[in-house]
């Protein structure tokens, strides 16, 4: 990875050069096509990195992991749209970890603009910088980027494949390519004869791929329409294979225990009891933890729990109060970034009413339904790893290092993910499974974490504090001065992934904070990085997950201070700034029949967050039932521009909202004696059937650029609920989880 720094230094050259139309060396370098990872065999034609046609049919190698967001189906629809095959004729597989699957959109998100005000110039620059994703070999499912990334490339792949197939048929029939048509996986000759694509595969392999223009959206048959998800039957019948379901001949099962004082050393252990326990085959010293290999996961777990370990201390303050004191200290230092600084916030305008508030949000676990796991087979010269993961190229690099192998000697098999939410972009589970399997060469070993191990060894959503100062005058916000302090998950992750220290302004820390589409004349938003070594990472919507709450709770407080309806107060500031955002607020206003008034025993709150290119507004209604508060209803409106699969977008929107509401109501990771105090779902619950609201979603399509779907539903849910509780009770939620302050239904 030593070359990463060199490539990064070329960043500006590449972007600028591409924009002025020049071709710099760097641009050539990063634009060079990646080697085709599919390596077609005899009788197969790999037309591009994404689709393979052979005698058995059409196979799509989806470069993104299916973790519930429906990406598998939508990627297939993108390619089918141009290739003229029926969706159910396509076999979809996760692509191998390969450099060709670079995630260009993810790098584009790093630009220091607000996003919603992106001009065409900046948009193009973002696209140009996108080639960096390729340079860094980022094959990452995250940042709600899959559709933005795949939209052009997948259709181009399909169009090119179609025209090249037609050329092969034209050569065979001795006619011009333009005389041929395609439908349902066949080339159709002028006389009506049909040649299946599968028959042309061998001929196509000899041709250079043909570039073809994309079809006009008016001709689309799949895109923009809801498609039945290709993974649904498997998931309804228990036949979908998740990481934990991998079964290989002669496989053994392992359990693991790492230091609960996260990042601390292991001073020693006594495994005398565990040695003789049933099913135990081997005890493995991992250096910073222990594992037991057995003939059954449960027996392995019983034995690993019976090992007496002497754990070293954690490299951070031992309890929650000490940790938050360190976070608060970050306010004393100069800000890491001030990405918005409009007008003059130092002077409160004459005659305006000033308000201040401090908010504090806890660390959070991802708590995917499928605990972390991976299966590894180490044979001395090679390694195979099976797991659900969000970053196969990164995990391959890491486990190759762990095993002392070249990356070429490592094969990654990506299964379905039993939830990702950012957790499966980390590399620890793959690394641990590799170390365990290396203790038993030639035998596949599946290492599964207990729920407790999973909950207590996360890369947590950072705890965060915000200090807000604002001013209202004549019913409007005239000043917002916000500061957020938290650990930087970006900097920590860069260090984790590359071994190099992360540095520079961290946009992720302040996303959802500095880039909200409100026309407030004096507006400054700063981020302060807390220096702490609690492991932190990317939790669904990342910085937006805390900043959405800070910004939108404060908006509500300002609206009340200004004597305005909180929805109208926002609309007033938004209409002139970003019409698609205002459109979302208008939509939830209409859907919920918002009047600003609620009957006794009912409370309503509104919130809005622009994140991942998608504005989302939510109204949440709570009801008081004999002193117990239940979340009754939710209305969501989003505008991601083109929605490729509207029903799937709706599912992502309400799913993202439920994930946020779960955290808002019950989610909190706390520390004592350096250890996480939550062990399992009873300590870290989520919404359930009886506590989840009814929900209505509207998908708008006016935005000029395509936004994400998987994450933007999460940020506004938390403040919308807090604001609804204020409406119901008159009590303001300035900290989460809400269960500590309100008598919520459990």
């Amino acid at each position, binding site marked *: 990875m030593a070359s990463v720094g060199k490539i990064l230094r070329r960043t500006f050259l590449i972007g600028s050069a591409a924009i002025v139309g020049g071709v710099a060396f760097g641009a050539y370098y990063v634009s060079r096509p990646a080697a085709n990872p599919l390596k077609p065999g005899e009788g197969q034609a790999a037309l591009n990195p994404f689709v393979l046609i052979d005698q058995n049919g059409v196979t799509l190698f989806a470069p993104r992991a299916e973790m*519930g*967001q*429906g990406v598998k189906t939508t990627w297939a629809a993108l390619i089918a749209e141009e290739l003229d095959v029926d969706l159910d004729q396509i076999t979809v597989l996760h692509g191998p970890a390969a450099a060709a699957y670079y995630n260009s959109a993810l790098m584009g998100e790093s630009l220091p603009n607000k996003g919603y005000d992106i001009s065409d110039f900046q948009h193009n620059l973002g696209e140009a910088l996108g080639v960096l994703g390729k340079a860094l070999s980022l094959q990452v499912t995250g940042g709600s980027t899959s559709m933005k990334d795949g939209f052009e490339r997948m259709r181009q792949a399909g169009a090119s494949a179609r025209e090249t197939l037609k050329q092969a048929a034209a050569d065979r029939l001795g006619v011009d390519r333009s005389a041929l048509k395609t439908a349902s996986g066949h080339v159709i000759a002028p006389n009506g004869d049909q040649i299946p694509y599968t028959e042309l595969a061998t001929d196509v392999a000899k041709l250079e791929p043909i570039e073809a223009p994309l079809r006009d959206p008016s001709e689309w048959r799949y895109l923009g329409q809801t498609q*039945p*998800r290709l*993974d*649904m*039957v*498997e*998931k*309804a*019948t*228990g*036949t*979908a*294979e*998740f990481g*934990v379901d991998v*079964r290989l001949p002669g496989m053994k*099962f392992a359990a693991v225990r790492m230091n609960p004082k996260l990042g601390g050393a292991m001073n020693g252990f006594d495994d005398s009891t565990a040695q003789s326990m*049933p*099913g135990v085959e081997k005890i493995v010293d991992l250096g910073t933890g222990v594992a037991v290999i057995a003939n*059954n*996961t*449960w*027996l392995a777990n019983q034995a690993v729990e019976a090992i007496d370990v002497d754990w070293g201390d954690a490299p951070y303050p031992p309890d929650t109060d000490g940790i938050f004191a360190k976070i608060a200290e970050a306010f004393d230092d100069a800000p890491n970034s001030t990405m918005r600084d409009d007008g003059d916030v130092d002077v409160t305008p004459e005659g305006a009413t000033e308000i201040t508030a401090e908010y504090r949000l806890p660390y959070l676990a991802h*708590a*995917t*339904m*499928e*605990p972390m796991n991976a299966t590894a087979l180490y044979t001395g010269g090679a390694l195979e790893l099976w797991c659900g993961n969000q970053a196969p190229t990164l995990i391959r690099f890491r486990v190759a290092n762990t095993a002392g192998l070249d990356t070429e000697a490592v094969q990654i098999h990506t299964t*379905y*993910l*039993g*939830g990702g*939410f950012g957790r499966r972009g980390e590399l620890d589970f793959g690394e641990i499974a590799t170390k365990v399997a290396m203790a038993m060469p030639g035998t596949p070993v599946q290492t*599964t974490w*207990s*729920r407790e191990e999973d909950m207590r060894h996360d890369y947590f959503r950072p705890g965060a504090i915000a200090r807000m100062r604002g001013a209202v005058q004549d019913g409007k916000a005239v000043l917002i001065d916000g500061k957020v302090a938290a650990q930087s998950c970006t900097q920590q992750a860069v260090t984790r992934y590359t071994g190099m220290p992360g540095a520079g302004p961290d946009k992720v820390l302040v996303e959802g904070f500095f880039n909200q589409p409100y026309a407030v004349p004096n507006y400054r938003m700063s981020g302060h990085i807390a220096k702490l070594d609690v492991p932190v990472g990317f939790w669904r919507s990342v910085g937006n997950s805390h900043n959405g709450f800070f910004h939108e709770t404060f908006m509500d407080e300002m609206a009340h201070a200004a004597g305005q309806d909180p929805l109208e107060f926002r609309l007033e500031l938004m209409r002139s700034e970003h019409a698609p955002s205002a459109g979302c607020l208008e939509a939830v206003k209409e859907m919920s029949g918002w009047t600003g008034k609620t009957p006794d025993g009912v409370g309503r709150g509104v919130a809005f967050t622009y994140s991942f290119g998608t504005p989302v507004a939510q109204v949440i209604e709570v009801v008081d039932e004999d002193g117990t508060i239940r979340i009754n209803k939710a209305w969501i409106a989003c505008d991601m521009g083109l929605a490729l699969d509207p029903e*799937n977008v709706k*599912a*992502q929107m*309400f*799913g*993202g*909202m*439920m*994930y946020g*509401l779960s955290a808002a109501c019950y989610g909190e990771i706390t520390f004592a004696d350096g250890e996480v105090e939550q062990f*399992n*779902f*009873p300590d870290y619950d*989520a*919404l*359930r*059937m*009886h*506590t*989840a609201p009814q*929900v209505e979603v509207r998908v708008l399509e006016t935005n000029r650029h395509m936004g994400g779907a998987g994450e933007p539903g999460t940020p506004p849910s938390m403040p919308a609920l807090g604001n609804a509780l204020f409406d119901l009770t008159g009590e303001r939620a300035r900290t989460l989880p809400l269960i500590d302050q309100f008598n919520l239904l459990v």
Partner: protein
Amino acid sequence: MATALKINGKQHQVDLPDDVPLLWALRDEVGLTGTKFGCGVAACGACTVHIDGEAVRSCQVTLSDVWGDVTTIEGIGSPDAMNALQQAWVEHQVAQCGYCQSGQIMQAAALLAENPAPSDAEIDEAMQGNLCRCGTYPRIRAAIHDAAGKLKEA
């Protein structure tokens, strides 16, 4: 130490200590991986199976305590022959990550066997032990109502 179990109509001999929970015999010994491990403490419902038709958390039933015939998600339907609930799940596009859905369907199947036309409140009551981190609850509810309606017609 072998325990005799009847699973999905087939007889199995499971050679594990008799304090091993049924879940881990199903998954690691018999190879029926449709039943999922989620929490190990009966707090999430991912491991729900039927014993003599009753929905139970298989992570809490030791091999020595299995009192009847076991049915897992693989036993109520298959991709080529889905039962009414599985069809409704597909029709309503319920699953997202899909990990909890085996347990959800097994719980819902036990509910419908006992109560062919459950109200929303009865669905709340029966399904609240089954966690879904993707938040698919609205579609689960709709699918249960739909399957109930179809079973009534049949």
